[in-house]
């Protein structure tokens, strides 16, 4: 079993135009920085990116947006990304906005082999358009379909050579659900360790979900809003 690859460039091999990608992270927290840089350098285009946000104008997925490598975004939140909002309003970018919990569950369900499920979020709103509505326990629910991606790209704190992953603090966010839902899942990790170095009781993502893993280099881990006690 060989899951360890040299770097991001090797990890994203096989990602071609018009593919669907999932990218973990919330804002700039827990995003796969190395892989995003490699995608920017690769000039791959026409991508559908499933990611809660789209980075900021000059970091994270914002870099791919700026180079118009993304055809469609599937996200829950645009705010604070001027270029994302501009491309959305001008129609240059196709955008599907979905409630955050529904997005997370659609990824998790995709990885778990559940094709669709009912949730109350979005009933009576434009999110419900075209979706089957059904009442359960006196409350209206929408039928939501699960999501899978050609490649899921996640960022973890620690990972071992078998692809077992541990996330840190709120940098877990969408990474855990998305790691399950890639036909190929790439994990970039802050610390790649030998088998047996991680406590099996503490694993968030069991290695079965991960096909490629590499030691990240030069992570900036930029903070979007530094807020301190006054």
């Amino acid at each position, binding site marked *: 079993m060989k899951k360890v690859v040299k770097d991001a460039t090797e990890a994203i091999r096989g990602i071609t135009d018009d593919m669907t990608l999932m990218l973990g992270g*919330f*804002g*700039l*927290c*827990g995003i796969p920085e190395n892989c995003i840089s490699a995608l920017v350098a690769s000039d791959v285009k026409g991508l559908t990116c499933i990611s*809660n946000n789209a980075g900021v104008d000059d970091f994270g997925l914002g870099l791919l947006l700026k180079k118009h490598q993304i055809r469609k975004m599937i*996200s*829950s*939140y*645009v*705010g*604070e990304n001027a270029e994302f*909002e501009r491309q*959305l*309003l001008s129609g240059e970018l196709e*955008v599907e*906005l*979905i*409630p*955050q*919990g*529904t*997005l*997370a*569950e659609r*990824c*998790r369900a995709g990885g778990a082999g559940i094709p669709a499920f009912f*949730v*109350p*979020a*979005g*009933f*009576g*709103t*434009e*999110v419900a358009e075209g979706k089957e509505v059904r009442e359960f326990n006196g409350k209206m629910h929408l039928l939501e379909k699960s999501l899978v991606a050609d490649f899921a790209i996640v960022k973890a*704190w620690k990972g071992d050579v078998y692809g077992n992953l541990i*996330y*840190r*603090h*709120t*940098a*877990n*966010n*969408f*990474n*855990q*659900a998305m790691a399950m839902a890639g036909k190929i899942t790439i994990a970039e990790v802050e610390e790649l360790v030998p088998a047996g170095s991680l406590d099996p009781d503490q694993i*968030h993502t069991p290695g079965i979900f991960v096909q490629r893993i590499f030691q990240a280099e030069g992570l900036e*881990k*930029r*903070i*979007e*809003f*530094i*807020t*301190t*006690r006054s």
Partner: protein
Amino acid sequence: MALDKNGIARRIAQELKDGFYVNLGIGIPTLVANYIPEGMEVILQSENGLLGIGPFPVKGEEDPDLINAGKQTITYTKGAAFFDSSMSFAMIRGGHIDLTVLGAFEVSEKGDISSWKIPGKMVKGMGGAMDLVASAKNIIVAMNHTDPKGNSKLLKKCTLPLTGVGCVKRIVTDIAVVDVTSKGFKLIERAPGVSIEEIKSKTAGNLIIEGEIPEMQF
């Protein structure tokens, strides 16, 4: 006198009860955390994956792996728990959150809320707001009574794309506390020194006024 955003947050903090698990939205709702009464234990949930939000960090101790749903650096309390997004929304969707406080562009007298999009002008996205309003047991909206142009934000019917229908229970604004009832808005309290006439004139939806309307107490 109308309240500022800290005043609104302070009034909302009076709705908290010991042992509550609470989700605070971005903006004014976040400020509620500053006014949790002494000795009361309230656990704050952040939908990006934390139960037990602590104060903002001291300068130099910001951690890029530790942010709130507004993407600000935070700390975590003793006894906190981290988890992934699908687990986070299992808590929300499963009805385990006692109180949700969020901002809004508009609220209707039926309890509908608009908060995520102004067609052609601005799209913020719904983030977790649609999940929260569809499932929270109790939803309080924190907002100003009117928009910057003076138009009422408490309407007969929302004009902007909806975030949820029939879900808002209470609205705390800069001038009033208003409940959503089956007959429309009901005035509960007024901000200190604000007249009933002023609240009436700034409320476009049907406003029920019954008996003496007390001033908010701080």
